[in-house]
């Protein structure tokens, strides 16, 4: 069994604000991430998939197929976007990196079989770095 990990980068803006909290609570919880006009990050996303090596190709994963899936499901919808305004999943939901990681993992998981119709490789996890010091990981088996 092998685990192949591919790293992608996209730039986006967001504002952390929960409609379930008061203005004051939002400022207290999210601090400068709650400033009204938002701010941006260069997000780094690592996608890991596991499986056996195909004897003919020497590969556990076709990188071009993964690139296409991530381009369609993550880089195009999220890159150079305002996550709050442009992404349906974040209407009324704070686009924290926890929630963003779950959304990315959910999109990849839902479209995985179309990109990789066989038994292998299987999506294992998504790791998202909002900055080099704030990093979030989610396993594919943790979500629907």
């Amino acid at each position, binding site marked *: *069994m092998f*685990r*192949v990990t*591919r790293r992608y980068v996209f730039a986006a803006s967001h504002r952390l604000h929960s409609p379930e909290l008061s203005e004051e609570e939002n400022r207290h919880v999210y601090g400068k991430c709650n400033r009204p006009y938002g701010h941006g990050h260069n997000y780094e996303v690592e996608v890991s998939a*596991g499986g056996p090596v195909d004897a*003919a*190709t*020497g590969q556990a994963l076709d990188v*071009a197929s993964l690139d296409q899936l991530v381009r369609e499901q993550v880089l195009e919808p999220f890159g150079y976007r305002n996550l709050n305004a442009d992404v349906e999943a974040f209407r009324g939901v704070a686009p924290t990196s926890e929630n963003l990681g779950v959304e990315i993992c959910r999109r990849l998981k839902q479209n995985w079989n179309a990109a990789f119709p066989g038994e292998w490789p299987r999506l294992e996890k998504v790791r998202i770095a909002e900055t080099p010091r704030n990093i979030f990981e989610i396993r594919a088996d943790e979500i629907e």
Partner: protein
Amino acid sequence: MVVTRRVEFSASHVCRSPELSEEENRRLFGAAANPHGHGHNYVVDVSLEGDPDPVTGMVLDLKELKEILNREIVEPYDHRFLNYEVPPFDHVVPTAENIAQDIWKRLEPHFLNGRRRLRSVRVYETPDLFVDFCGGQPCFG
């Protein structure tokens, strides 16, 4: 406890399988199938797992590990054309997966006895693509 040491080597390779057609090789490997090859600065993270020795406080002697990694990885791989100069890549496609597995095979005999065992070999082909091999077991974490 897991201890990881990193080594680097630079090598060239070409990714094409004799079992596939020219068109399939082109589709699968893209520019990596260009017949005269290309190179990478490979980075290898070798992780060993064990309990620290109560006297030395070390899981293993890092000087000894450095020598093993130099002898088993850097010396055979560095500044070589893998397909032509480093078996088994005369008949095995030198993908990052197969390189990770070959490095595991070279290292494993050194860590069969004692208080530490080989846990994982991670091979970065570029900063954006890496492979973990954990001896045939699923990689945890």
